[in-house]
C-alpha cells in the first residue's frame, strides 16, 4: 500500500482516538462540571461526620457551592474538623448552619449550608459554629425503639398516644443535640 494512504488512515485513527478521549472527558467525565472558581475556606466542627468524604459537595438550596477539603480529627475536643472550600462568588452570613445530609436514603453524604440572618459575612479561615451531625441510622432506630419501649412501660392503655409521643421524641432528638452542642461549643471558648 502506498505511504500516503497509510499516513491518511493512521491520521484518521489517531484523530478518532483523540475524539474518543475528548468525548470521555466532556460527555462522560466531570472534567467540565467539577471546576470551581477561586475558593475561600471555612472550618466547621462536627461530633460525627458519618461517611463524609473529601471532595464531597457543599450545597446550599440544592446548588453546589463548594467542596469538602481536608477532614481532620481534633484530639483536644475529640471532634472532626472539616474545611469547606466555597466558591468566591458565593458569600454566606456568619450564623450559617452547616448540616451533614444524605442524598437519598443510602446515597453519598454532603454538607448542606442553611443561611442565617447575620449581617456579617463568612471570611476565609472563619469557623461555622452552628453545625448538625450526620444522622446515623442505627442510632436513630435504637433511640426510637428505646423511646417506644419506655413509653409502653409507662402507659400501656393508649397505643395511639404512645406512638405519637414516640414520633415526637424522634423528631425532637436531633434538635436537642444541636442545642446541647451549641452550649458545649460555646462553653470552652
Amino acid at each position: 500500500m502506498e505511504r500516503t494512504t497509510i499516513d491518511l488512515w493512521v491520521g484518521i485513527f489517531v484523530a478518532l482516538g483523540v475524539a474518543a478521549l475528548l468525548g470521555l472527558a466532556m460527555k462522560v467525565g466531570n472534567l467540565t462540571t467539577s471546576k470551581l472558581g477561586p475558593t475561600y475556606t471555612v472550618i466547621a466542627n462536627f461530633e460525627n461526620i458519618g461517611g463524609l468524604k473529601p471532595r464531597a459537595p457543599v450545597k446550599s438550596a440544592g446548588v453546589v457551592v463548594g467542596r469538602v477539603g481536608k477532614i481532620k480529627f481534633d484530639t483536644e475536643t475529640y471532634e472532626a474538623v472539616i474545611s469547606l472550600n466555597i466558591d468566591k462568588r458565593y458569600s454566606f452570613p456568619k450564623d450559617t448552619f452547616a448540616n451533614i445530609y444524605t442524598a437519598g436514603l443510602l446515597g453519598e453524604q454532603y454538607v448542606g449550608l442553611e443561611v442565617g440572618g447575620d449581617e456579617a459575612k463568612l471570611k476565609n479561615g472563619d469557623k461555622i459554629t452552628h453545625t448538625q451531625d450526620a444522622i446515623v441510622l442505627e442510632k436513630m432506630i435504637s433511640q426510637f425503639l428505646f423511646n417506644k419501649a419506655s413509653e409502653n412501660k409507662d402507659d400501656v392503655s393508649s397505643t395511639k398516644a404512645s406512638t405519637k409521643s414516640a414520633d415526637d421524641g424522634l423528631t425532637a432528638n436531633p434538635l436537642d443535640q444541636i442545642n446541647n452542642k451549641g452550649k458545649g461549643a460555646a462553653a470552652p471558648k
Partner: protein
Amino acid sequence: MIKRSRLRPLRTLGHRVTKRIWRLGAGARFFGLTLISSGESFRRFHLIIREVYFTGVLSLIIILVSAFFVGMVLALQGYNTLQRYGSSEAIGVLVALALVRELGPVVTALLFAGRAGTAITAEIGLMKATEQLSAMEMMAVNPISRVIAPRFWAGVIAMPILATIFSMVGILGGYLVAVPLIGVDAGAFWSQMQANVDWRLDIVNGVIKSLVFGVACTMIALFEGYDAPPTAEGVSSATTRTVVTSSLTVLILDFVLTSFMISV
C-alpha cells in the same frame, strides 16, 4: 538405578522451572535491547506509522463492533438488575464505569492479542524461519532496531487509542439500548454518569492500564516470534503461546494495577 528413575519427576520439574526462568530472563533482555535500540526507529518515524496502520487501524473494525455489543449487553443486563431496586437511572454510571475502568482496557487488550499479537508473532517467526533477520545482520542492519522496535512502539501507541475508542463506542452502544430502546430518561443517563465518573481516577487510570497492556501484549508477541524455532510447527506453537501468555498477563496485570489504583 532405581533411585535415578524415582528422581525423574523432580528432575523434569526442575528442568521446566529453569526453562521458564531462562525464558523470562531472555524476554527481559530482549525488552531492554528493544528499548535501547529504539532511538533509530523514532528518527525514521514512518516505520512506526506503517506498523500503527497494521496493528491499530486494521484492528479498528473488530474493536468497534465488539465495543458496541459489549456496551449494549451491559445496558441490558444492568437495567434488568437495577430496575428491581428502582434505580434504573443509574444505568449510565454502571455502563460508563464498567467500560472506562475495566472492560475498555482489558477486552481491547485481549482482542489486540488475538488480532494483532498473533500477526506480529507469525510475521517475525516467519522472518526468522526464512532467515530474513540473519540476512539483515549480514548487511549490517540491526534487525531489532529495524524490525522489532517499530512494531513495539506501534503497539504501545495503538493500544490506548483503541481502548479509548472502545470505551466511547461502548458507552454509545449502552446509550442506544438504555434510552431509545428501554426508555430511561436521557438527561438522567448522562448527568448521573457525569456526576460519578472522575476524570483522573477513572478515565486517566483506564488509559494508564491500556498503556501497560499495550507494552505487555506487544512485547510478548514480539518475543515469542523472535524466540520461535525456525520451523512451521515452531511458528504455529509460538502463535498459540502468544495468545495464552498475553491473555493471562493482561488479566493478572489488571488485578495488580487495579489494587494499586483503588488503594491510592
